[in-house]
């Protein structure tokens, strides 16, 4: 029998919160240790790392702007994971969403808001379909979604790279990039001079809707039932096959949306490899948030803060951006091992 320790709900909450905080704290300690090892002027580096992201409205705005696609992607991951599915193809799905939006915007110049909506819908449709395919393969032939999402993502990255480098390349720049979309497609900036734009509102809405969907709707309830115990869900008459596909569709669509908003809000063109890391980082954000929508906002902000800190430290002192990767790796390691959380919950064995 699986042992389940007896805790009050509050105690359970506090202990799991402690687990997360311990992970965050440990990774920050690792970061400081790494800076002392790598930097000749460690105090300057540390100061610019931690204070840099808050040095100006411009820095703050850009930091939050970076958190937006991560949060949206993480919401998708949370939906997939809570239903017992896996979507680790975020890299390709974000990239595809970005390219599709760019293509629509370039094809329909001057359409304004209508064009934006069409572009977002198209990117969600394409990325959602890709993830749906993985869900369907699992439902139909029990092919591991872990493998199909990852492999399909790699293919998509290569296809998008080709599209950006050849059919849609802008010959007038030195970058491998598409042309820029026209200004009627640019999202409204809400904190000038930074790039923070109304995509932030969309991210907040996504989080809120996902929360209500999971906890306040029948479909969300059934989705969680399937994720918690598929056997039980089947017994209770839930169509478990639907929940192998629907959450995948949603997670793919949200990745696509994240990529699309990054284009319309921040980059305004698909630059080759611009989104590298976004898919993985969104997965990491979802992991830190333990797949709870409400926790995704702070998790995404923390993640963006580490990223901005590394950029700032790179700019003002002698450390390189790779310092951020060290922190990310530490977090990834700690979370996937879950040791701290398990110790905090008093579980030695599962």
């Amino acid at each position: 029998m699986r042992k389940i320790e007896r805790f009050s709900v509050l105690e359970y909450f506090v202990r799991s919160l402690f687990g997360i905080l311990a992970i965050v704290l440990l990774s920050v300690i690792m970061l400081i240790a790494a800076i002392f090892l790598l930097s000749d002027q460690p105090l300057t580096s540390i100061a610019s790392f931690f204070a840099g992201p808050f040095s100006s409205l411009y820095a703050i705005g850009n930091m939050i702007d970076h958190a937006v696609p991560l949060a949206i992607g993480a919401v998708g991951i949370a939906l997939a994971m809570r239903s017992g599915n896996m979507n680790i193809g975020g890299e390709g799905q974000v990239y595809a969403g970005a390219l599709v939006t760019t293509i629509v915007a370039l094809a329909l110049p001057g359409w304004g808001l209508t064009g934006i909506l069409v572009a977002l819908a198209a990117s969600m449709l394409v990325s959602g379909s890709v993830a749906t395919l993985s869900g369907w393969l699992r439902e139909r032939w029990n092919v591991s979604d872990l493998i199909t999402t990852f492999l399909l993502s790699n293919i998509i990255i290569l296809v998008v790279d080709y599209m950006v480098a050849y059919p849609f390349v802008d010959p007038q720049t030195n970058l491998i990039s598409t042309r820029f979309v026209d200004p009627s497609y640019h999202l409204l900036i809400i904190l000038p001079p930074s790039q923070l734009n109304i995509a932030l509102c969309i991210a907040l809405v996504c989080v809120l809707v996902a929360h209500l969907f999971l906890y306040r709707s029948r479909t969300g309830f059934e989705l969680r039932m399937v994720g918690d115990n598929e056997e039980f869900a089947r017994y209770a008459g839930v169509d478990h096959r639907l929940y192998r596909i629907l959450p995948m569709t949603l997670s793919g669509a949200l990745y696509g949306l994240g990529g699309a908003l990054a284009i319309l809000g921040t980059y305004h063109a698909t630059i080759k490899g611009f989104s590298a890391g976004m898919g993985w980082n969104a997965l990491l954000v979802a992991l830190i948030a333990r797949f709870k929508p409400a926790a995704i906002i702070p998790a995404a902000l923390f993640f963006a803060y580490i990223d901005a800190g590394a950029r700032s430290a790179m700019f003002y002192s002698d450390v390189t951006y790779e310092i951020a990767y060290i922190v990310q790796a530490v977090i990834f390691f700690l979370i996937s091992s879950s040791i701290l959380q398990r110790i905090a919950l008093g579980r030695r064995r599962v």
Partner: protein
Amino acid sequence: MTAAVRMKSITKIYPETQKRANDQVDFTLLPAEILSLAGENGAGKSTLMKILYGLISCDSGEILVHGQPFAHPSPIEAGKRGIGMVHQHFMLVEEFTVTENVVLGEESTAPTGLLDRRQNRQRVAALIEKHHFSLSPDDRVMSLSVGQKQQVEILKMLMRDVNILILDEPTSVLTQLEIDSLFTTLRKLQSHGVSIILITHKLHEIKNISDRVAVMREGRMVGVYETAEVSEEDIARAMMGDEGLSVVRKERRQLNLDPVLSVAHLSLIRHNQDHPLLDDISFTVHPGEILGCAAISGNGLGQLESVLLGNLPVSSGEILYHDEVLTSVHHTATTRKRGIPFVPSDRLFTGCSLSAKVSDNVIATSRKRFFPPFNVSRKEIESYTSHLIETYGISATPSAPIGTLSGGGIQKVILAREIERIRDLIICCEPTWGLDVNSTAFIHRQIVQLRNDGVGVLLISSNIDEILALADRLLVFSRGSVSARFSASQMASLTKEELSPFLLGKKRMEVEGA
């Protein structure tokens, strides 16, 4: 004579609950005896044995093993002292062979430092030979039956020269034949000088196998008896305290209404099986009666449940709810969609979601009522759950994960949930499996109450006492087919002895449909 184990004034308080799981418990195990440690769920018997095996430490008290103090117990130390424990849920590597499992940690190695496969195999084969187990050293554990896996666990202990063997609920997963063979093994071990402790709450097994029985209740040792000198009722009374045995009394009802559930010529054939898993099963359930389906496990009850649940497609035949076809060759799984109340036999993994809240488990089978299709407030859900908890006397809070409840508590939640949706039919599979006497009595009362209220009850159970106490009519299954049918008038005088040849498949009744 030195006692094999002597535990003196053992006290253990769990910090999480502040509950005295063991309160000044004294316990003695004599050399080469079989002792049953009896008590209801939560009486403290597992705690006491975990302390002896070194899995947890006690707050105060003293332990002597063969007269020597056992000061710093741990499973490793316990192993050195010759104490072994077979857990209720086996700790085996499924992909390994019997040999590999048995020698794990005690492997013979060749001079090169590599595993000496031949010698390992020989050691295990010799041990199997000595104890007459029905195992081959080269079988993979995953291909073994539950009874054989238990034998592998016991072999592991024997390989380590265990002379004090603790078995936690060893019979809960076994068929009657496997239980008989386990008891033969235990007696043989006893004759080799091994002292054995059986943790159990099955009264007839206590009577059957043990020399002495130690009874615990609410963390205290309430009595130690020579088994020959006490009756099952005496032991039950000691286990339950003053509440006494609540006997379920039945008032028979004769009702001639149309059946609520009809199963007609149901067969289930699998190509790799030499006989049908279900062979031309027909029966009807009428309002206001309990139809019992009894069998020794492994004779088709599990398949019948799977078919009723819609987990297995049938090969022929159909299942009707009133006149509506629920399951036939053409469609399955509609039983659950139709929302027929169902208490599944596997309560932990089919009947509930352990990590989900009690309230979420309670509304899981009436989702449309609570999410039509949205519900912004959880108040209704919480208050409905509180209402059920109160009505059925379950000790739980709505927001606690259901996995934190006892087995009896979980089953009460499942039963309450299903009873609340009843229209005229409920299907109950092994409803009291592994539960203590009080929870069992509670569930039996509920089932009889339902029948008296005019509900049709299909009771599928391998617990023969339960079937005899509850069923108005009875079907006996053997090797997937119906070997006997007993009508309401025959049930009144039916005894276990009359039933057993049909259960064992030694006799079959030739009767027209019932």
